[in-house]
């Protein structure tokens, strides 16, 4: 006998109530370290070299990375501002906003129907939950959404997506566990064309970026959809876990090379991790951050805003 598929409405309701807190309140928990650290450093006094060194450590401690932290400190140092808490905070904030506000990001054509979005990432970053949230946004706008259960590897991944599809009001195309991921995607896109669907979102299995054969598989999924809809997938979203450290850089690099990532989603920003690594990624690869995940319910997805993000880090 198999265990029951649960879809507890009570839980959903409870989640709905808990989500009525705004982003800032939720991010407040995660910003104390950096913000308080800055206050402590500036009040501690001392010479410029010591202050800059401690700021550098603080930024590294927020996962911003050694190189990007050094760059930010260098900018602050050479700006010639007087070193007091407010000016330093403002200078760092401006630098981060500058890095995150990417220019020359190619426009994505969203007019083609069906619009095809593929979601990729390493294991356990929150791909399936992110897909549910994206689908909820789109169905909320009155769009017709179809989910492709191309994670045919992980135990119960299909069931997980199916429950979400039911909750957010999206269609789903699935095969059995162990089926060929690319053929699920192919069937899903075919079905989307037949059913006049607006957006197809393809869920893929988590894979470590160093596993060559698995990376080839994800590239193949992309190639297969292009056979049905020209220049698709239109978007390839890489989901990063906010708690991930410098490894996220290698993830961004590998997935970009393999399947042309068009945007990032940072999941699990409701914890104490600040997701500082995206600053380094934006600086190094110029990939835009599109959304941030801030909780476990289908509504907890917010469009990324560089200013808000920097504020959440620093104020």
């Amino acid at each position, binding site marked *: 006998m198999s265990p029951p598929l649960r879809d507890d409405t009570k839980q959903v309701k409870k989640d709905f109530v808990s989500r009525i807190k705004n982003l800032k309140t939720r991010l407040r928990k995660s910003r104390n370290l950096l913000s308080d650290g800055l206050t402590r450093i500036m009040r501690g006094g001392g010479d410029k070299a010591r202050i800059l060194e401690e700021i550098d450590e603080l930024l590294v401690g927020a996962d911003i990375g050694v190189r990007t932290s050094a760059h930010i400190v260098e900018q602050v140092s050479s700006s010639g501002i007087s070193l007091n808490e407010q000016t330093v905070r403002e200078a760092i904030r401006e630098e981060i906003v500058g890095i995150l506000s990417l220019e020359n990001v190619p426009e994505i054509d969203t007019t083609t129907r069906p619009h095809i979005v593929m979601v990729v990432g390493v294991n356990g970053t929150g791909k399936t939950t992110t897909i549910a949230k994206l689908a909820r946004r789109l169905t909320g706008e009155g769009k017709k959404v179809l989910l492709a259960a191309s994670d045919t590897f992980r135990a119960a991944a299909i069931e997980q997506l199916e429950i979400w599809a039911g909750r957010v009001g999206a269609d789903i195309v699935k095969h059995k*566990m162990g089926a060929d991921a690319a053929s699920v995607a192919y069937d899903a896109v075919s079905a989307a064309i037949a059913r006049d669907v607006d957006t197809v979102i393809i869920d893929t299995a988590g894979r470590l970026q160093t596993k060559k054969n698995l990376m080839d598989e994800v590239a193949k999924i992309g190639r297969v959809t292009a056979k049905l809809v020209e220049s698709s997938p239109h978007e390839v979203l890489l989901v990063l876990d906010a708690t991930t450290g*410098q490894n996220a850089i290698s993830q961004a690099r590998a997935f970009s090379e393999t399947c042309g990532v068009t945007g990032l989603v940072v999941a699990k920003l409701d914890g104490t991790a600040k997701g500082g690594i995206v600053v380094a990624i934006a600086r190094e690869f110029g990939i835009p951050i599109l959304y941030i995940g801030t909780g476990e319910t289908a509504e907890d997805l917010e469009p990324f805003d560089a200013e808000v993000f920097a504020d959440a880090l620093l104020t």
Partner: protein
Amino acid sequence: MFSELSEKLENALKRIRGHGKISEKNVTEALKDVRLALLEADVNYKVVKQFTEDVKVKALGEQVLTSISPGQQFVKVVFEELRDIMGEGASEITFASDPPTKIMVVGLQGSGKTTACAKIARRFKSKGRKGLLIAADIYRPAAVQQLETLAREVPVDVYYEQEQANPVDIVKRGLKEARKRAVDYVITDTAGRLHIDSEMMEELRQIKATMSPHETILVADGMTGQDAVTIATEFGSTLGLDGVILTKMDGDERGGAALSIRAVSGAPIKYVGVGEKLDALEVFHPERMASRILGMGDVLTLVEKAQDTMDVKEAERLQEKLLKEAFSLEDFLGQIKQMKKMGPLEDIVGMIPGFSKMKGIDLDEGALVRVEAIISSMTPQERVDPDLIDGSRRRRIAMGSGARVQDVNRLLKDFRQVRKLFSQMNKGKLSGMLRSLMG
């Protein structure tokens, strides 16, 4: 594992290794590079600070400066500090004297708890232990199905409940069931949660109070950044941790979490997850890990892996055959299959001392698959006596294995060379041959 950290540390140490004399200046310099390497590997900055200070004090101490090869001595200090920061020896889960041994598995969302539960069960299963898993994640959609599917693969039974029940009650009834079945161990898989979610952390406290586990294990993602210490500290202060399992350690993760978590929480790292298969769980040995990080290889793990997968008698038989030039393609195929059982080539090579640098090279796992296909397309006679294989047989084999005739030719040529090499070794001609090769 740790490839990047390893490379950077090796570079930092290389400069000081050969020095006949070391001064405060070159120690400070080397430590600067060590510091950077550790920070880029996500080791918590506070841990890094402590680490470099400790190394410096020891390195500038009498013993290092006055030793015959201070450079080497310095490397030894770094090795010992690394080892000590990661723990005191291997620390596996032990079975309690009053069964069942109760294990509770906790962690953030997506850290790999459910897979870790199944991997532990598989490990115990191979030791002939009987167990029960309790599915206490009632929140994530299809979490119970995931545990159930993995458990079937182990195989081990799962206790779950049809009706919506609270996890504390599920655990209570699951334990009762475990006692009734007189199992050796029971593992509770809890829902992923944030360490700052007070309501959910309270639930864990209640589960722990109900279960009174012998081992409370935190499962942490090996790719976690600076936040690893906060996570470990929070779970530790709420629940008290007996050990940690680091997961996803088969990528190019920097592994800083391995160094930080133990240093901050004091809880030993018991196992590391090194792959998606259920047997991809290794016991964590701080000493061997320190050795691997510093590019000194890990012969012990390699030998253990070989012993786990190879049959000693079979190996002796092969050696005999090799030396008598009776080694056939059939034996060769057997060897390839055993190699593959030991795990990814890259991991194996990384354990050989001095070979850590080869890690960058693209080891072609596919070549093994092609060779396997070619040999599998030969008749048993052809495998024993490759001289039988003429032009038309070559074409047939190529067709059958999806390879090109050239590939078949190359394989046959390589095989003959290897066979010749070994028979000459036996006849004591090897030194002459090596001379001519190096010519």
